[in-house]
C-alpha cells in the first residue's frame, strides 16, 4: 500500500516536473511581461521536433537537449524582436489573437513538414526500463527527468535572485519606466527573458516526447495544462509555478490510479477548488 502510494507520488512528481519546465517560460511572459502568449506550446513542440529530427540524423538523444535549448531560445529571441515586442503595449485581446494565430501557423507548418502522425523517439539504453530503489520500481527516464528539472529550477532561482541580470529583470518588471530611467535596457532584458523562457519550453518539449507524445496538435492539446500550472501557481512566480505543476502532476496521476472512472477529471476539480480559494494563484502578486 505504502509502496504503491510512493510509486504514484514519484510518477506524479516526474510528470509535474515536465509541466513545470514547459510552463515556467509562460509564467514569466504572463506575469512579468504581462503578455498572454498562447503560442508558448508551439515553442515546446518546436523543441520536440528538433530533437526527433536530430536523433534521426544520428545525434545522441542527450546531446540534442542543449542544442534544442539554444536553437529554440534563438528562435524565441528572434520572434520577440521581430513580432512580440510590438504587442507588449497592445490590449490583451490583440495579444491572444496574435499568439493563437501563431499557434495555428505552427500546427500547419509541423503537419506540412513532419506529417500528421506521432513521432516515435528511441531513448538511449541506460534511460529505458525501471530500476529498483528501496523496494520501489522507478522508471529510469522519470528519475532522470526529475533530477534534471530540479537542477534547472535551482539554477533559475539563483539566476533571478543572485545575479545582476536577475536584479535588472526584477527591476524591469516592478516598474519598467523607473528601471529605464536608471539606465537598465528594458527591451534587452525582455528579449533575453523571453528567449530563456522559450528555450526552456523547447527543452521541455524535447524531454516530453517520451511522456506526452508529439504530433502537430501538441500546442493546442497541452495548452490547457500549461495554462493551469501558470494560473494556479500565480503568473510570474517561479515558486508558484513549481508548486502548482507538481500538485497538478501528483493529483492527475493519483486520480487516474485510484479512481480511474473519473479519469482526467480530478485535476479540473482541483483547479476549481484552488482558484476559488486563491483567485490570484497560490503565489499571486496581483490582487
Amino acid at each position, binding site marked *: 500500500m505504502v509502496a504503491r502510494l510512493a*510509486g504514484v507520488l514519484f510518477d506524479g512528481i516526474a510528470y509535474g516536473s515536465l509541466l513545470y519546465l514547459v510552463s515556467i517560460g509562460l509564467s514569466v511572459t504572463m506575469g512579468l511581461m504581462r503578455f498572454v502568449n498562447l503560442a508558448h506550446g508551439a515553442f515546446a513542440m518546436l523543441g520536440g521536433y528538433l530533437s526527433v529530427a536530430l536523433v534521426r540524423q544520428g545525434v545522441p538523444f542527450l546531446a540534442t537537449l542543449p542544442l534544442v535549448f539554444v536553437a529554440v531560445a534563438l528562435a524565441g529571441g528572434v520572434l520577440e524582436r521581430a513580432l512580440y515586442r510590438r504587442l507588449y503595449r497592445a490590449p490583451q485581446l490583440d495579444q491572444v489573437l496574435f499568439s493563437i494565430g501563431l499557434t495555428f501557423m505552427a500546427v500547419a507548418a509541423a503537419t506540412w513538414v513532419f506529417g500528421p*502522425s506521432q513521432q*516515435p523517439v528511441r531513448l538511449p539504453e541506460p534511460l529505458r526500463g525501471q530500476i529498483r530503489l528501496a523496494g520501489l520500481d522507478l522508471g529510469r527516464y522519470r528519475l532522470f527527468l526529475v533530477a534534471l528539472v530540479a537542477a534547472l529550477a535551482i539554477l533559475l532561482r539563483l539566476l533571478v535572485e543572485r545575479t545582476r541580470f536577475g536584479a535588472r529583470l526584477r527591476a524591469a518588471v516592478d516598474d519598467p519606466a523607473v528601471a529605464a530611467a536608471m539606465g537598465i535596457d528594458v527591451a534587452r532584458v525582455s528579449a533575453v527573458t523571453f528567449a530563456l523562457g522559450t528555450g526552456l519550453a523547447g527543452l521541455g518539449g524535447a524531454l516530453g516526447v517520451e511522456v506526452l*507524445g508529439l504530433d502537430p*496538435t501538441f500546442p493546442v492539446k497541452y495548452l490547457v495544462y500549461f495554462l493551469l500550472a501558470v494560473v494556479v501557481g500565480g503568473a510570474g512566480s517561479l515558486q508558484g509555478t513549481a508548486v502548482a505543476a507538481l500538485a497538478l502532476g501528483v493529483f492527475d496521476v493519483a486520480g487516474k490510479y485510484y479512481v480511474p*472512472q473519473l*479519469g482526467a477529471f480530478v485535476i479540473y476539480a482541483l483547479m476549481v477548488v484552488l482558484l476559488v480559494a486563491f483567485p490570484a494563484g497560490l503565489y499571486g502578486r496581483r490582487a
Partner: protein
Amino acid sequence: MIQRALWTTALLAVATPPAWAAEPIRIGLIAPFSGPFAEYGKQMQAGMQAYVKLNGDTVAGRKVEVIVRDTTGPVPEVAKRLAQELVVREKVDFLAGFGLTPEALAVADVATQAKKPMIVMNAASSVITTRSPYVVRVSMTLPQITVPIAGWAAKNGIKKVFILVSDYAPGLDAEAAFRKAFTGAGGEIVDAIRVPLRNPEFAPFIQRVKDARPEAVFVFVPAGEQGIAFMKGFQERGLAAAGIKVIATGDITDDHVVDAMGDAAVGMITSFHYSAAHDSPENRAFLKAYGEVAGGAGRANFMAVAGYDGMAAMYEAARKLEGRLDGDRVVEALKGWKRESPRGPISIDPETRDVVQTIYIRRVEARDGHNWNVEFDQTAPMKDPGKA
C-alpha cells in the same frame, strides 16, 4: 415486348451512343485527408489507385473518375455536406470512403434519399449497415475483429484478463464484445478501465494493470498516439517481465505504425483481418501496385486494402450491370459477391450487406530490423457477430 425493347436499345446504341456510355463513372471519395486522421484518406485513395493501376481506368465501356473530398476528421456535418454536394453537383454514381463511424452515420441518410450506393471502406461500428439499405461494407466490424482474440485467449490458457479501452463508442463496443466472448468461454475479467481520449499521461493506468496481476491485458485504443503511448508505458513499467501479455485488436499494431513502435511492440498478439505480411499472390500483387502508386508513403495497411477491395466491388457492379448504374441494382448485384482479396477470401453477406471474412491471430515479430504482424492462427470466415 422485352425483346423489342432490347432491340430498340441496341439499335439506339449503334446509332447514337447513349448518354451513360459517354459519361464517366463518378466515385465520390469522402474521408479525412487532413488533421489527425489524414492517414485514413491517404491509405484508401492509394488502395483505390492501386486497383486502377492493375485493372485499368475503364470498366463496362465507361471511364472511372474518383472525386476526392476531405472531411478533415470525425466531423459528421462536413461529411454530410460533402456527400450532398457530390450527389447534387457532381452527380456521382457511388459514395465511398468513410474513415470514422460518425462520418458514415451522417452520410447514410443522404445515400438513402439519393438512392446512391455507399461503399464503406473503414468505419467499423456494427450499426452502420443498418442505417441505410444502400450501405455495403468491405472493411470490417469491431465485434468481428474482437471476438476471435477473446476465443484465442480462452483456448490458450489465459484465464484472467484486465480490460483497458478508450472511453468512446468503439472502445465501449470492444469492451462489451470482449467481455461477452471471454466470460462465455470461461475466462474471468479482473477489472476494466476506460481511459479518456484526451490523455497526456498513460502511466498510472498501466501501473494499475500491473498491480492487478492479470495474465493478460486486452487493449483497445485508437491506433497512433494512444497505441504508442500504451506500448511505451507497458515496456517502461516492465509488464512483460511480470508475465502480463498484451492482447488486442489489430488496429493498434496497424501495418503503417507497427514499425515505428519499435521493440516495444514485439510479441504483441492481435486479431485482425489484414496483415501486410499475409502470404498470397493476391497480396503480393496488391503491395507491388501500392508501392508503385504511393511510393514512399509507408507500408499499406487495412484501409488501403479496403480501398482496393471497395474499388473491386464498384468495378464488379459496373460490369454486372453493363455500366447502367442505379443504387438499388448495384446493391442487389453486390449481395453475395465473393472475392479473393489481398487479406484472404471475402464476401458480402446478402442479408446485412456487411463483409464476411477470415480473421487471423497474429504476433508482432521483427524480421530484418522491421516489425511485421505474422499470422499464426485463423478463424473460419465469419459474419459480424455484433448483428447476431
